[in-house]
């Protein structure tokens, strides 16, 4: 939510500025002198200047919007990478090669944004025991944290928590649901409003 807080006002201001320029000539009663006054070349140049001005404002608004879009996209991409979920085998907390590849992408973003703090939440499928799964989820979360800290991320920037099987993302007793629920979720706890892409 907070990431939009800064982007949206900027977009709104830009849009309002563009709209205001568009509308100025449309009602046009303001400069109306005498109804019978003939339109001279003077008037033409005024209109041309006005059109130029409108176009210029439009270009500025467009580029502003494009910049905002670029920033939003970069922020979203960085956030997606940071919050990318990793998955585990049944009753296992070992990181697969794919998990490691997913974690490898987070490292440059964490390095580029020293103020960024995250929480890793370990989760389990519905088959095991409630209490044993709390311990298993803890080990899953800790496995991701250890991988990141082994690659230079400061331990104080990563919290871990286990939800065991208390917060499934997929419902039902199917292999697909089980597989989706055996995961580590990554949540940004601080420094997520602006994110530089990783180098």
């Amino acid at each position, binding site marked *: 939510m907070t990431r939009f807080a800064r982007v949206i006002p900027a977009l709104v201001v830009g849009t309002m500025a563009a709209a205001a320029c568009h509308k100025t000539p449309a009602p046009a009663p303001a400069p109306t002198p005498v109804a019978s006054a003939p339109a001279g070349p003077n008037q033409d140049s005024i209109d041309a200047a006005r059109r130029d001005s409108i176009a210029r404002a439009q270009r500025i608004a467009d580029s502003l919007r494009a910049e905002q879009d670029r920033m939003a996209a970069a922020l979203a991409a960085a956030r997606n990478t940071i919050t990318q979920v990793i998955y585990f085998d*049944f*009753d296992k907390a070992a990181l697969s090669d794919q998990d490691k590849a997913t974690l490898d992408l987070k490292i440059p973003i964490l390095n580029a944004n020293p103020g960024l703090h995250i*929480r890793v939440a370990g989760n389990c499928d519905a*088959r*095991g*025991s*409630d*209490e*044993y799964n*709390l*311990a*298993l989820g*803890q*080990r899953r979360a*800790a496995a991701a*944290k*250890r991988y990141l800290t082994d690659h230079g991320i400061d331990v104080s920037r990563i*919290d*871990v*928590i*286990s*939800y*065991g099987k*208390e917060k499934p993302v997929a419902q039902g007793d199917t292999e697909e649901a089980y597989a989706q629920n055996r995961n580590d979720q990554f949540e940004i706890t601080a420094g997520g409003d602006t994110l530089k892409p990783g180098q």
Partner: protein
Amino acid sequence: MTTSVHCSRTRRGIARRAGSVLAAGAALAVVAAVGRAQDTARGVHIGLSYDTGRKPGVVVLPILGVGGDSAHAILERDLDLGDRVTVITGGPAAPSADVNYALYKQLGANAVVQSFLAPTLLHVIVHDVGGRKIYQTRDFVVTAGVGSPDWRLAMHAASDQIEQWLTGTAGVSATRVAYVRDGAVWVVDADGYAAHPVSARVGALSPTWSPSGRFLAYSAFTPRGTVIEIQDLQNNTVRTLVATPGGLNSAPVFSPDGNTIVYAHGDEIGTDLFAANPFSNDAGRRITVGRGTDNTQPTFSPDGRQIAFTSGRSGHPEIYITDVDGTNVDLLTPYEFGDQNYRSGPDWSPDGRLIAFSSLTGGLFQVMTIGLRDRSMKQFTSDGRNEDPSWAPDSRHLVFTSNRSGVKQLWVLDVESGRTRQLTFGPEARLAAWSRPLLRGP
């Protein structure tokens, strides 16, 4: 074989049976097919007679007094749920001072329970139908208002004493079961009535009773980890255990003397059992050395010297036993290498003979027991998913979670007869813990 059990003494019984000491052996030999609830204290043998191998039949008479109908329903239900007597219905519909022994003998009753409810006491008379006489009598103090939780508990305590008189073993009605519903800890009377939440909705898991029944401990989720809360049911204060700050703290259990709490603490190198003083802020003491594995779900032996727990140290969750100081770790449940089945959730029976646990077989948990002496295993469930058993104080009844009705609820199983009943209804209920007796008759 005879049913040899212990009973309380009554002057009347002593008066009638005094002098039967020498005759006792001969009497047992003569009436070989007759069971006898008897008291061996002071060498005096008294008792209620009934056939061995058959539960004594009992008629509970209607009860005179304000709340008498409720009291009657509670006594009758408690005796039935105890699974040690056969409650005979169809007796008189109205309270009566006279007891027609011939009639009750015809109904198959061995005993008749006659009670009178006064504002501050329940007066109970148990009649021996075969002996055509009063067998036991006692006044139970009832201070609470009719229908209140304490009033129900007083009725349950009377039931448990009556069961003691009739069978030699006290009932377990004056107990409660704590469990998890909607993220809160709930408590229900052992007869399934008076269910209500006792904690806030804190993502509570794994409630457990202190031996006295005064405290409940459970785990709760916080944004920075999982903590153990200890709630005083007398004044409803809650304190957070800080013996091992941060990380995972779960699956608490009190030692039999109530002075220690043992729980699972997980950090970044696995989860191990820790012991702490539940009422101080002292640091916790590590019990298990799991070296990065999961060790959780502790349960004490009744003598407080050993702890059974679940460990994944062999790559596979199984039940282990350790001394409380962490030495002498021993695998209890047999281990099948390479499959996806596992054992978890142990609960040590109060008599010390059995450990109940959940066995994950073919994707579904089932409730089993394993004998401490010979390690023989027995499976008690097969309908749906059944897990997290907890023993009643009688080491005969188990409460567990089952989804057999379509939603997870608590069920109670009598391991001797196999009789099973549903304890909770409504939204999902799980992670049950059976209290010790919360009240004993005077």
